[in-house]
């Protein structure tokens, strides 16, 4: 029985779960990641705690990483990228490139788990001045500070007294071209708000939103908790623009449930940046000739009923590579892709036998 290995591209949550699943089902996985470590964006972007569990990110991701690192059925290739592919599954010749050079491997199936990238608020049309004002940061910048356990005003290094989040930055925006809701930012902002209040009990925290999208258990486990236990203030109406007055940044917009204009100074403004397809995801769509859906993510064929199968036989996709996804989504589709790629290889093996 040939039992061709399955190539998992990307070692974030979805890829880790896919590789673990493939190995658990008794198949061989080759797990590649361009970084020199596993864990994907939660690790590379220094997430402090995962959403919604609020567990330490490194601890949580290490738990996943351990399941593949000592696994004889998982061949891990770090600092490695996929540069080319020839043939058709279950007989694909994929070229991997690392510091030592190129290597072509023969694989039976592919799981693309190349994830997303954070929206860059510098390219947006809104007037948030991310690259102008030191005290205007993103969710990712805030994660980094929170991970270090020290949340400060970047301009002064002092503890802030008043902090706000602006939701939907780079999402739900026709002008920018990102029509979608990034799904996780409401939860992540709320999680960070809790962390800030926990770290700095005297700091007021505000979340300016269009609508809070706290689906499922996030509602009470994050949103209600933030409001009721941590006294985070959620105010409807996102900020239109930011100006600087003296040494503070001033957020300007409408407080819609009061029906009044609002112009309030903040020590730190956190932009809740959304998700975009990563460069890796775009690249994989080219290499494997996988069509993208209208938003630019990898398209799966079955809509809600088949979340991992692409139009290319034997090529599956998992995690945020197919659209905005939270951790639960990524783990779920990672597992689903493992199951389907193994099934694909098994069917091929049976035909050959």
């Amino acid at each position, binding site marked *: 029985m040939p039992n061709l290995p399955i190539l998992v591209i990307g070692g974030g949550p979805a890829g880790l779960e896919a590789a673990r699943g493939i190995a658990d089902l008794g198949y061989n996985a080759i797990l590649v990641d361009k970084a020199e470590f596993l864990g994907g964006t939660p690790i590379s972007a220094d997430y402090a705690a995962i959403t919604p569990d609020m567990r330490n990110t490194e601890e949580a991701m290490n738990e996943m990483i351990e399941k593949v690192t000592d696994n004889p059925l998982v061949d891990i290739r770090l600092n490695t990228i996929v540069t080319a592919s020839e043939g058709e599954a279950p007989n694909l010749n994929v070229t991997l490139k690392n510091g030592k050079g190129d290597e072509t491997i023969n694989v039976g199936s592919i799981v693309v788990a190349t994830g997303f990238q954070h929206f860059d608020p510098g390219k947006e049309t809104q007037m948030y001045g991310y690259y102008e004002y030191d005290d205007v940061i993103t969710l990712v910048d805030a994660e980094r500070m929170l991970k270090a356990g020290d949340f400060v005003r970047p301009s002064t290094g002092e503890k802030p007294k008043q902090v706000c989040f602006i939701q939907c930055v780079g999402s739900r925006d026709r002008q920018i071209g990102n029509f979608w809701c990034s799904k996780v930012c409401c939860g992540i902002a709320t999680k960070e708000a809790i962390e800030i209040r926990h770290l700095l009990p005297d700091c*007021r925290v505000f979340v300016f939103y269009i609508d809070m999208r706290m689906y499922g258990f996030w509602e009470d486990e994050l949103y*209600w908790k933030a*409001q009721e236990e941590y*006294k985070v203030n959620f105010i409807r109406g996102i900020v239109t623009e930011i100006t600087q007055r003296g040494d503070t940044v001033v957020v300007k917009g409408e*407080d819609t449930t009061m029906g*009044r*204009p609002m112009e309030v100074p903040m020590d730190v403004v956190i932009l809740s940046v959304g998700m975009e397809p990563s460069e890796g995801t775009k690249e994989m769509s080219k290499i494997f000739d996988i069509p993208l859906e209208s938003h630019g993510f990898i398209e799966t064929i079955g809509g809600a009923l088949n979340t991992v199968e692409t139009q290319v036989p034997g090529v599956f996709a998992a995690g945020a590579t197919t659209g905005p996804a939270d951790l639960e989504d990524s783990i779920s589709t990672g597992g689903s892709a493992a199951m389907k790629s193994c099934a694909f290889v098994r069917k091929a093996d049976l035909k050959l036998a």
Partner: protein
Amino acid sequence: MADHKYEKWIEKDNVVIDGIDVSGEWNRMYEPREIMEYDLTYMDKVTELDGGESMGWCYQCAQCIGVCPIDNVGSYGPRKIFRKLQTGLNLFEDKDLWLCTTCTNCVRVCPKEVDMIKIMPAVREQAVLNGHVPDELQDMLQNVAEYGNPMGESARKRVKWMKKFEEPVRDLSKEDNPQPVDVLWYVSDYFSYHNRGNDAAKAMVRVFNRLGIDYGILGKEEKCDGDSQRLVGETGLFEELAEHNGAQFEKYEHNNLVVSDPHAYNAFKNFYPKVTKKEYNVQHYTQFLSEHVDALQSLMKRPYPKKVTFHDPCYLGRHNGEYNAPRTLLNAIPGIEFMEMYRCKEQGYCCGGGGGGMWLDGLVADHTSERLSENRVKEAIEVGAEVLAVCCPYEVSRFEDAVKSTNNDGKLQVLDIIEIMDYSMGNSDVLGDA
């Protein structure tokens, strides 16, 4: 940056000058509209209070506003108070603290369980301690503290309504060696001191006597039940009253405590036990009498061929879940054509008298376009009722005033259920004899 005090910035979303409603966006031009600061000082003070915690839980679904009786005639309601607190309102010294009638319709619908029935007394208690109480309310509180009733009448006059009244009533306070009674009837302030309340009290006596109920009253030893005083934040006064009345209930042996007033019912059932550590076998008179409906039907022979609607008292209905007993009694009266108003039972509209509203007509009038009782009376007329039946002593006078002030004199009569029952038994002070 802004050195302005918040008070300067608040906009008047609701303005009535000399009874003329001049609400509207135009009045914003006099004051800056912009929110310059989210000053959470008072929000924190409210949510730190025992009972005030849930004020911070609002997520602006606004379901409360849909059922808030004050918002019907002004701009008010829990979600708006939440936002005002978030934008710096000092609720402890603001009129918004006193507009809530504690009707609990918002609590019924609030998905976050923001509990205005706990929040209002908690914040008001602080206002009372700091002397920030509207004058008209302060007068009432002083009267209750001094005389045991909001009218400021002497304790002796509590039984004045029985003078020249031929019906026998056992005043237990006058008996040397009072024997146990089956029913201890708590008459209440308005039945005792208000002239229209007296009518209902007399009707009650006649109905009790015809039914052969073994009952007695506390006479001059009865004091205000204190529930409305508790709800306006006078916790100390409430506790005193609970201890006083609780001691009387101990003194006179009885099986049932029957009350005329839903506010007393609420107090004795739900709040006296916290003070006196005793439970009371308490019933509102409509509950007690509805258990005797068969006997009543054989006594109520005189037809009352009128179109009658019923106003659910907040403290009998929503607060304590009793909607059937008053309707059972009304439907037992021969000839009655009973009709519901649009807002009835759980959805019932408030008369405006609860939570201190009874003594805040002046303040409320300054901030609303009409009285709640006026709004309600119009509804009764709209559904085609000739009679608005009530079973809360606060309501007869409120609705009678509203009938006049809405120019509906002669179109709608306001009667306590007991008065109609009394009439149907062949008597009545108000409707005349057979």
